[in-house]
Structure formats: C-alpha cells, structure tokens
C-alpha cells in the first residue's frame, strides 16, 4: 500500500472541478491512494445571500479573515459543503470510474478539535470578543477510518465541518484540516490548489511566484503571504514539520493541476 496523496481544492470562484477530478481519477487509476478535501466558500456566500442570511466576515487583529459562523450559518455551511459541493465532486469522480465516498469531519469522527471559546474581531473599529462562534481547529484525525476505506478501494472526498470535543459541528479551515489529514496519514505529499499559482512575492502579480519555501525560514514566506494565503502557508509549514513529505501550493485553474503540482509547478514547501 503506497503512501497517500492529499489534495485540497479551494472553494473560491473560478475553480475547475472537472480538471481536478479528471487528474485525481488518473492518479487513482495508476493505483495511487488519494484523499480529496474541498471547500465551498464562494457557493456558501451565494446561498446565504439567497436565504436572507448574508455572510459576515470577521477580521482578527493580526489580519486573519474568516466567516462569522452562528448556528444558522452553520446550517447553510453544511448544506453547501456537505450537500451541494461534496456530492457534486463525488458524482464527477463516480462518472470517471473512481469509487469516491463523501465524508465530513463529523462522519466517523474523522476531524475533531476544540471549539474556540471566543474569537476576537474588529468590527467598525471596535475590538470585539464573540463567544457563540462555531469555529475551531482540527487536532485529531481518524486516520484508521481513512485507511480502512482506501484499503477497500474507496477514495475519500472530505470537507469541513469538524466535530468539536463537545460534539458540535465546527467550521474549520480546509487547508489546515487537509494538513492535519496529511500528517495523520504520513502522506507523501499535500497539494493545496486554489485560484492563484502559489505564494506570490508581490501579490497579485502572478509572475512573482515563489518556487520554494524552506520550512527553516518560514517567517519570510509568512511575511509575503496575505489573507487566506497566510493560513495556507501556516498549514503547509506545520505539515512538513510533522512529517509530510512535501506541500505544494498550486493553481487549480490549469489542466492536470495535481500532476503539475507534484511535478513542482507552484510553491513547494519542504
């Protein structure tokens, strides 16, 4: 049984899921063990808007941005991530002959971790503490279940939410969750696909791609990274430090995005 490859495809607009699924199907056909993790943020915003509960984003003091996740938002979140996006991707993979199995972090307690007791936000210039936010971190991964399924020939297609230690559904960052999965499986590689070619020296100039990041000098990369890319780089560094072979931040909008990433196209963190 070879080592697994964990692929995370973002949920922002402009992602070519057909290209990603075709690439994953190719790898699975060659006998590679793949876990696909996906997001759904753009679609969640659209549906939240349509249901009259428009998305709210909070920005922490150090510039991290994330979705304000109250109870109603979590319901919309699971409808889009676990319903629409997950089964759309499972359907595409099944049509390509991959026996995909769609799972959230709740299922089989695949992703568990602490719910944030309170989160800090800056709203209208005021520093705020929010206590009922259903968001948190992934600390534990049920890798036995993933191995059981992959050994039986299934390809897991995973998404947030995770399960808090108080057994609530919590919103967790997809990249960090993928990194935790890669660590738990001692994956050969973690590929983080999004709508940018990788870490850019001066965003948004796509030609300023940083080809390599040495985990020993991660601070430099963190300084370059902006917004969501900060979270990706953080997850990538953690994964490599915890034993994942390599992490590649790459472009989801190209043909064969996973193969290209594995061949070094994008930012390789090692």
């Amino acid at each position, binding site marked *: 049984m070879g080592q697994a490859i964990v692929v995370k495809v973002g949920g922002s607009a402009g992602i070519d899921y057909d290209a990603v699924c075709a690439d994953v199907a190719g790898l699975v056909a060659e006998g590679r063990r793949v876990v696909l993790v996906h997001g759904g943020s753009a679609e969640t915003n659209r549906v939240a808007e349509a249901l009259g509960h428009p998305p709210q984003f909070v920005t922490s003091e150090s510039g991290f941005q994330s979705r304000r996740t109250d109870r109603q938002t979590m319901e919309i979140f699971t409808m889009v991530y676990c319903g629409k996006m997950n089964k759309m991707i499972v359907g595409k993979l099944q049509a390509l002959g991959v026996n995909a199995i769609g799972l959230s972090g709740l299922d089989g307690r695949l992703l568990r971790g602490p719910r*944030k007791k309170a989160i800090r936000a800056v709203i209208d210039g005021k520093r705020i503490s929010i206590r009922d936010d259903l968001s948190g971190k992934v600390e534990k991964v049920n890798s036995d279940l993933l191995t059981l399924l992959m050994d039986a020939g299934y390809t897991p297609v995973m998404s947030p939410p995770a399960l808090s230690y108080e057994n609530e559904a919590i919103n967790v960052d997809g990249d960090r969750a993928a990194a935790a999965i890669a660590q738990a499986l001692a994956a050969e590689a973690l590929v983080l696909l999004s709508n940018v070619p990788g870490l850019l020296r001066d965003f948004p100039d796509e030609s300023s791609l940083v080809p390599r990041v040495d985990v020993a000098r991660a601070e430099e990369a963190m300084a370059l990274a902006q917004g969501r890319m900060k979270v990706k780089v953080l997850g990538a560094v953690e994964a490599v430090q915890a034993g994942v072979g390599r992490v590649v931040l790459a472009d989801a909008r190209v043909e064969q995005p996973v193969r290209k990433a594995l061949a070094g196209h994008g930012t390789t963190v090692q």
Partner: protein
Amino acid sequence: MAKQVECPECGATVELDDDVISGEIVECPDCAVELEVTSVDPLEVELAPEEDEDWGE
C-alpha cells in the same frame, strides 16, 4: 457621568465609551489586563478570554 466600571483584576476604575457595546474588549488603564464587556445594562466586565489564531473557512 461617563460609563465606569471597576477592574476585576486590580480594582482600578475603567472608563468606557458612551457607545460601548456588549462583547467589546477594553484595557484596564492601570494593570493593562484585557476586559470584555459582558453586559451593557447593567454594565459588567470580565477578564477577556484567551484566543488563538486558527480560524474557520
């Protein structure tokens, strides 16, 4: 009378803006501890909870 409250950590008097809202974080001028306004009417503060960086999607 400006809105005031006693700092639970060091007992100093903490001045609050008029438009203070529930959940707002303020610093005690004396001991610099971070306080959270848990209720505006009646005015109550608690030590603000710790908070680390990892966030949801």
